[in-house]
């Protein structure tokens, strides 16, 4: 198992490194001039040239890349050009708030999605199963920004139950104030993903329930509860774990949309700000953090997979 973990970890490092090359390359292809972005539209050409010199924008790209990467390795995320502040703390603050959204959403998606999928698979063809199938298609089809506007109009403007926008720390407005600001964004983020995960769990579970070893378990007289939990679910969940890891990627994209609509100050908003203002150091560091989060989520999925599926951990460890 240790060898397997080391191998996957090495893989993550390679992925993040390749992504750092890509991010650096792509951001340098973006239209717009960083010096102009800093100096504003009233800058003279001489000022722009002088600033480019100071920022090292005239150095060859590999030199600039090495400067950036070695800075990152020392924990220096660079300086936000527009805000004239270190990018590291800004990103960390945004990441923390986005992580709250992401963790709450992913937990809900896993719990509710799997429960709904299993329920529907064990009651196939019932009214509940059919309604659920219908709802799944509906929630998968309708995009997040539409839900976001709809729930704001309904819960904030009309019912006036929940705040439409923003974030308040627990220290400022207590647990309830904090929670009320999270409810609508999390509900918006989870709707589509719950449908996705429950749909997949349902079909995987249905297939597993038809397997001979489930029949054998039932035949030796095990209670249905144990058949489901111990024999069927563990196998049926394997594809679900993979899909949950993939869903982390979808979730990150969703967080950017949801943070914009709900004016929630997370990493997604910060990235949009960086793109709008051509703040390259902030954008590069932010994108690399997102990449790393995604790679780590997949690492977690791989490890979970190995835990659930002995064939993988023993197969790899021996071979």
């Amino acid at each position, binding site marked *: 198992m240790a060898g397997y973990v080391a191998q996957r970890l090495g893989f993550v490092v390679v992925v993040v490194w390749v992504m750092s090359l890509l991010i650096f390359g792509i951001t340098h292809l973006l239209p717009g001039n960083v010096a102009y972005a800093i100096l504003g*539209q009233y800058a003279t050409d001489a*000022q722009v040239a002088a600033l480019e010199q100071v920022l090292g924008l005239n150095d060859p790209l590999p030199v600039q890349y090495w400067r950036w990467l070695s800075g990152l390795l020392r924990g220096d995320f660079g300086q936000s050009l*527009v805000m004239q502040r270190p990018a590291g703390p800004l990103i960390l603050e945004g990441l923390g708030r986005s992580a709250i959204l992401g963790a709450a959403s992913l937990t809900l998606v896993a719990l509710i999605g799997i429960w709904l999928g299993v329920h529907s698979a064990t009651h196939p063809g019932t009214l509940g199963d059919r309604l659920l199938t219908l709802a799944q298609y509906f929630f998968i089809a309708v995009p997040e920004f539409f839900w*976001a506007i709809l729930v*704001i109009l309904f819960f904030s403007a009309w019912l006036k139950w929940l*705040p439409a926008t923003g974030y308040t720390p627990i220290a400022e407005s207590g647990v*309830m104030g904090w929670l009320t600001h999270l409810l609508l964004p999390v509900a918006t983020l989870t709707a589509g993903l719950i449908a996705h995960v429950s749909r997949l769990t349902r079909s995987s579970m249905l297939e597993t329930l038809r397997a001979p070893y489930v029949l054998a378990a039932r035949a030796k007289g095990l209670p249905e509860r144990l058949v489901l939990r111990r024999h069927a679910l563990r196998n049926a969940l394997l594809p679900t774990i993979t899909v949950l890891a993939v869903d982390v990627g979808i979730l990150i994209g969703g967080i950017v949309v949801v943070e914009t609509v709900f004016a929630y100050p997370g990493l997604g908003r910060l990235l949009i700000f960086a793109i709008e203002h051509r703040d390259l150091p902030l954008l590069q560091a932010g994108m690399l953090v997102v990449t790393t989060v995604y790679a780590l989520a997949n690492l977690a999925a791989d490890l979970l997979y190995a835990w659930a599926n002995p064939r993988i951990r023993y197969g790899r460890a021996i071979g």
Partner: protein
Amino acid sequence: MTRAHFGLAALALLVFAEPAAAQGVLRIAVGTSLSTLDPARTTTGEEYIYDNLVFSGLTRMRADLSVEPELAERWDFTPDLKSWTFHLRRGVKFHSGREMVAQDVIKSFERILDPATGAAPRTNYEMIERMTAVDPHTVRFDLKYAYGGFADIMSDRQVKIVPHDGIDALPTQPVGTGPFVFKSYTPGDRLVLARNPAYWEAGAPKLDGVELRVVPEIAVRLAALQAGDLDIIWEVPPEQAKALGGKPGVRVDSVATASWDAAIMNSAIAPFNDPKVRQAFHLAVDKRDVVELTLSGEGAPTHSPIPPNHPFFNKDLPIGKADPRAARQMLAAAGHPNGVKVPLVVPAGRAIREKLGVTLQQLAKPGGFDIEIQRVPFARYNAEISGKAPFYVDGYFARPTVDTSTYPFLHSSGSWNARLFHYKNAQVDEVLDKARLTGKADEQKPLYLALQKHLVDDPPGYIAYAINFVCAYRTTVQGVATHPMRWFDLRAASIAP
């Protein structure tokens, strides 16, 4: 009721209780994050709100556009209008607690004049030749040439007095003398300001604080205002103004401004290097139709950057009705018997200006103009459009005086004209030169009336309208009026319980 039920009910009450608004903190929604906290470098309407809450200038502009003393208690000038002495108000303290003195004023203007600062309004103050601290509370400005509106342009958005020893802290912990003190800024979220207890005007401000909330989606801003999550929406799109006005608990306030939009015609590039083609376009499109279609009526047609509600507006000049036949004849006379085919660049993402482009495309068609719309992000305008494209949509915020609204844009040596119109008209130059040499309105008025006449005879570009500025307020908000310069004066603002 079982204990579980009771628990659930209590939880529901807690969760769904209306979010408590902090008493006396005014929440203003804006669409975009501020990019800088250094007033000299601000360039957007959102940033100007902040400038005027945290900082003060030597003079300030009231909602009726008249100028009154602010940090300068009074001023006097020599008869040749070339030497201006400002007497500073005594006992005004920066938020750091130190008294504001002449040295701060001089440092503030040195920064604005230093090209390295990148201050947007620098060219307006290049007339300053020398600044002298006569004593700690008196500053004298000696000008390179006579200028009658010098005290007026001291009220502009970015020319705020900053502490000479606190320049480095401006981007992160800015300190001013304004009615509100900077607390924190989270890009993408909010700017938090608190009441300045040591503000020099007795009894002001009344609010405990102000928050500028960044809410990018207009639909969300509107919903949040109705829900009571916000107190003010800064800049409501014109097409939303009427619908929002009917909602309970909401007040919509619209004011005429001197901010204008135009189809810029570059007089140095074909086809608009021919004045006849520029005139033909004016014959082809009725500005009243443009106001109705682009602004849902929230604006007024104008001849120049002087808005129709200004005393200097020339009411005797008619706003022409569209005459497509005459337009085509004029084009034929200019050597375009088959009309003119020209691309029109619009700034992508600026909704009203994009709409203006499409409106002009449609309205100018019968007059012989075959316009193709090209969308280009505004951020690329400077590098790719200004001075290069023959025809593009752009617009400008109101300037503090008629001189600063017209001279840079229309004089052949004007800084903005060099970017936009490339327009040269000796008569226009003459009246603009004369008008800035007097500080008296009755002498300026005939000159500016003549200016507009010359501009109608030989139009630099299609200056379409002066746009209204619309804000929406909860009815609980008192003591705030929508300001034609698009910032807020919140000294007297309060929130009714």
